[in-house]
């Protein structure tokens, strides 16, 4: 049991050190920080003074920034997680080592989680400090960080799943961009198209059900539910429309775990 954890953490640590050394965490974290700082200052600029409403609109803008950027970061970070080992020749080597090969997948996942969390901490700390120094709450920023890391992790899991299923980096990069387009751009357009074409005659339950099929939609709802105040939710026209928090968290959890389970199933079957 002890050796299982030692192996798991060794794999996670290696993944983290690799991304720290190749500059990923610092470069991407700083790029994200610049975007989020811009949004924070634009947010300040709109109201001219620091107030509760202004913080809410800044957070709302940041949620949208996260929806655009973080899934892409998660996908680009993880698409070659297993395929990279395969092409490097280390996947076969490690599969011949005396430990359960699933630990490689779980260790990777854990390491990539650490990389993504560190990147977003780098990216969100500066605006959070500015906002908190202006008298705003730490709580909202903490929740934003946690949900943002989580949406990234969901896309880490999805990318790792494809990484095991496809094992070919050149195809995986196209798949990663395709997944981003599908969930971040096309899905919303599809829902809007559906609503327009049916002139809004779609039961709200069905629309909610559609949201469960898209982790970024779940993230938007969950973040609004947990971070926005009632006035903001009303302004967004979402009062009474957000599914129960537990259901959102449950669906989010499923989106995190199921792809890793599929990846594990495939990894165990390699060579058959």
């Amino acid at each position: 049991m002890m050796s299982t954890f030692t192996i798991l953490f060794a794999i996670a640590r290696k993944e983290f050190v690799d991304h720290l050394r190749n500059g990923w965490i610092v470069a991407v974290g700083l790029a994200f920080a610049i975007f989020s700082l811009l949004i924070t200052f634009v947010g300040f600029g709109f109201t001219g003074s620091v107030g509760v409403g202004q913080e809410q609109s800044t957070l709302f803008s940041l949620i949208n920034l996260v929806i655009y950027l973080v899934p892409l970061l998660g996908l680009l970070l993880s698409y070659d997680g297993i395929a990279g080992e395969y092409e490097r020749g280390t996947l076969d080597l490690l599969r011949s080592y005396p430990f359960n090969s699933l630990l490689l997948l779980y260790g990777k996942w854990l390491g990539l989680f650490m990389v993504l969390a560190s990147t977003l901490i780098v990216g969100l700390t500066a605006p959070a400090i500015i906002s908190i120094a202006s008298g705003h709450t730490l709580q909202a920023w903490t929740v934003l960080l946690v949900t943002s890391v989580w949406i990234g992790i969901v896309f880490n899991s999805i990318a790792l799943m494809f990484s095991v299923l496809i094992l070919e980096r050149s195809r995986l990069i196209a798949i990663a961009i395709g997944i981003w387009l599908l969930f971040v751009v096309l899905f919303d357009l599809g829902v809007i198209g559906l609503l327009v074409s049916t002139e809004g005659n779609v039961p709200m339950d069905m629309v909610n059900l559609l949201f469960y099929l898209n982790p970024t939609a779940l993230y938007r709802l969950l973040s609004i539910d947990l971070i926005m105040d009632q006035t903001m939710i009303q302004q967004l026209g979402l009062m009474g429309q957000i599914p129960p928090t537990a259901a959102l968290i449950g669906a989010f959890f499923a989106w995190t775990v199921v792809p890793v389970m599929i990846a594990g199933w495939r990894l165990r079957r390699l060579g058959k």
Partner: protein
Amino acid sequence: MSLSQAASNADLSKETEGTTPVLSLSNVSKNFPGKKVLKSIDLQIAPGELVALVGNNGQGKTTLMKVILGLLIPDSGEVLINGESATSNRSIAQKSIFGYLPETTAFYPNLTGLETLHYFAVLKQEGRSKVLEVLKIVGLAQAAQYRVKTYSKGMKQRLGLAQALLGKPKLLLLDEPTNGLDPSGIHEFYQILGRLKNEGVAILMSSHLLAEIESRSDALALLKDGVISANGTVETLIRDAELSSIIKFHKGANFDVVRLDELLQLHTTEKIYSEHTDSFVLTCHPSHKQALLLSLLSADALISNLIVNDPGLEELFLQLNSGLEIT
């Protein structure tokens, strides 16, 4: 029990242990979609034995190694590791006897050689002190602090060998291990293998460098079209293949072409004359070789500067690959 009895018992137990092959394959087949890569492979490797796996590209050498390691599951047949069945997923205990060097491994460019080996050592549940030991063995101790991206091909190959040596392997599977090594590296590499053999480590090694294998392997397995078409010691295989020797000589002081022809006719051998070097070349079947040489040498000053080229592994390999199989 007397001392001599004890000694003979010890010998007996050693012999009994020695007869259980570390690896035994019987009737192993593996198909890929549309292609039979391995067809009914039988192979055994005893402790301390170095078996060279040879064959042209695409004949299934790497596939065979992957089947042994459990990276590919065979469609039929049996794999025994230390006498225990290991045909489906390997147990951790069965995996722990392997040391594997894949054909090409790029490793992790941002880690140093030392960090790379520490990582692999943890994954093999091996102590850190062993890392320094294997680094010294493969001659990478000086370069251990540099990142792997600065390593040459040969240094990466040494790093690969170092990781294969971690964890006290009982069976080394080396896929073209001397690729990228310089001549002194190859020499050191075989010295390392020699020491491991003495410690009882069984080795299966694939290579294209026949000259290098010829004198260093205990047995040879030639893989062709998915079957082992020849298996045995190099000497036995060459003898059984009845490969011809090449005999070259110049004219002697008493050279007489009629006499030479008569002599060759007796031994059913034909000559080729090279005008350029003013010499003769004979291709001689092994059953005639001794008698022919005796006749040539005892004929007074008929010939001079006699050179005999006996067939080696390269000739054997070429013949086996030309389709003439040895039974």
